[in-house]
């Protein structure tokens, strides 16, 4: 009698184990599917974009100005604008961000001011990009009177990626072991000498990776640039930065109106004609290649520096 009951119990348990294992397998499958679903969908979308856009991609597309006729329109003013904007962004964000990162890691004491700066940077990273556009509109366009120019757009994007640059710098510096600093101090170096000759060179890889990823985000940003009033139809280039006459270098381009790649795409997508949608897809391919190339470069740099430096 007892034996039978015992056997019944053990089949019960076996059933339960089988059921639990079944659930485990079901979840395993669900997990794999939902992890890959995003990738598969993205792959499908990319393919779609490439099929739509590749018919318009040509040398002429890269060297023509926008036009009323989709077949004749190109992205010359857009990619030149993007390039100039990135120049301004990099010049503003890199020194400021790296310096702030160095201060917070190497100099800052543990006090309320440091806490405020840290909380503030974490918060800035979560502010929507369009708010930076409003900030730039109020501050750079109307308060500093930079106008709706390359300078304003570049500075808006610089503010946007500043938290990313600071965080990347800090992470890169944090990875340097303390023994390096102690060795430098032991030889009589000052704090700044240590930073300049040791901390900065050893963290260059990490900082560079962060900067490139930040810039690749800035390249695709549309909202803040629309807010500062970039034009959607520009059939001329900003003034050339170098000229044959004295003083050879001109900064007039900083104050010229501009357009950028994402805005050009937005403009074309928003039109009802099919022809412009093809243009949007083609420009999308170019923009996507730029960001993916930058990200690949960042991954490569990170890999290379990690291999070179062994503590």
């Amino acid at each position: 009698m007892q034996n039978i009951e015992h056997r019944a119990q053990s089949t019960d348990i076996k059933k339960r184990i089988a059921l639990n294992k079944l659930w485990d397998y079901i979840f395993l499958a669900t997990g794999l599917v939902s992890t890959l679903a995003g990738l598969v969908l993205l792959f499908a979308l990319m393919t779609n974009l490439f099929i739509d856009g590749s018919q318009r991609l040509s040398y002429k597309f890269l060297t023509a100005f926008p036009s009323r006729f989709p077949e004749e329109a190109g992205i010359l003013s857009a990619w030149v604008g993007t390039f100039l904007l990135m120049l301004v962004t990099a010049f503003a964000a890199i020194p400021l961000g790296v310096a702030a990162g160095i201060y917070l890691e190497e100099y800052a004491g543990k006090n309320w001011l440091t806490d405020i700066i840290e909380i503030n940077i974490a918060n800035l990273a979560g502010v929507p990009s369009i708010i930076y556009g409003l900030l730039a509109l109020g501050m750079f366009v109307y308060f500093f009177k930079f106008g709706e120019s390359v300078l304003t757009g570049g500075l808006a994007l610089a503010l946007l990626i500043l938290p990313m640059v600071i965080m990347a710098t800090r992470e890169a510096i944090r990875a340097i072991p303390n023994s390096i600093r102690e060795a430098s101090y032991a030889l009589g170096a000052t704090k700044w000498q240590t930073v300049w000759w040791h901390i900065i060179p050893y963290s260059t890889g990490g900082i560079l990776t962060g900067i490139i990823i930040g810039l690749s985000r800035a390249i695709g940003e549309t909202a803040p640039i629309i807010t500062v009033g970039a034009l959607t139809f520009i059939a001329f280039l900003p003034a050339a930065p170098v000229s044959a006459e004295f003083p050879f270098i001109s900064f007039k381009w900083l104050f010229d109106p501009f357009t950028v790649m994402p805005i050009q795409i937005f403009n074309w997508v928003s039109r009802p004609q099919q022809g412009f949608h093809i243009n949007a897809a083609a420009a999308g391919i170019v923009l996507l290649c730029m960001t993916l190339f930058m990200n690949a470069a960042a991954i490569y740099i990170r890999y290379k520096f990690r291999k070179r430096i062994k503590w």
Partner: protein
Amino acid sequence: MKRTVSRKIKERIIETGLFLCALSSVFITLSIVVILTYESYGFFKEVSVVEFFTGTTWTPLFAEPKFGILPLVSGTLLITAISLMVALPVGLISAIYLSEYAPHKLRETIKPVLELLAAVPTVVYGYFALLFLTPLLQKILPDLSGFNAISPGIIMGVMIVPYVSSVSEDAMKAVPMYIREGSYAMGATKLQTAFKVVIPSAFSGIAAAFIMGISRAIGETMVVAIAAGMMPNFTINPMEPVQTLTSYIVQVSLGDVPHGTIEYKTIFAAGMVLFLMTLFFNIIGFWLRKRIREAY
């Protein structure tokens, strides 16, 4: 002697310079607050606060303007809700899969690819929503309008998935191995361990990931501006076109609105509401992340 003095001065100057750079980030926040407050203040001198927060019609560009922000807020929340319905389950399941099930090699290959997903410019996602997903959905739902809330919502969800899954996965990875081993020793399966042990232990981190996802969805602009239509619509019907706070700002900025007019000030008032909404979620997220750091 003289050399040490000049060296000390140089060190002080450099330190001060670096400090000012770090402090500049605080000035950015302050300027955001000052500019939004200043322009909104000008706005609220002409429009009553009560009308602004309770009105259900938003037509500031009409001849007879109405300034009720609710349609924009409802549009923002509607699209955010749709995107979260996609992003939260998919993000959480794939985080559990990557953290608890996936072989090491697969995880190391998938993570960078997921990060690349986050690098795709949002305007390209907008293209997908308008010209790929909407026509596709229209085959299933014939009365779906060309601009609607559901299509940008879904695409935005896909956009946020990598974000949610990577932050949640980090939180689950931070749960010490011995806690899992205790569960396995009691005869629990991986699934039971994941749901009854790992998720509760990593709860703060997962919640932080969700909250940050919400904040991103609220602030997302281009997908909505392209695919949701620019129609302030006080509705919860995802088939209709809607306008969000962000896409309203885009719409006004695209036109030629003169500085100082009431139309110009509306974008700052809308921006203020947007800033406060995201700030609220960011603070909760920040507090939750701080809690995980203290837990282990």
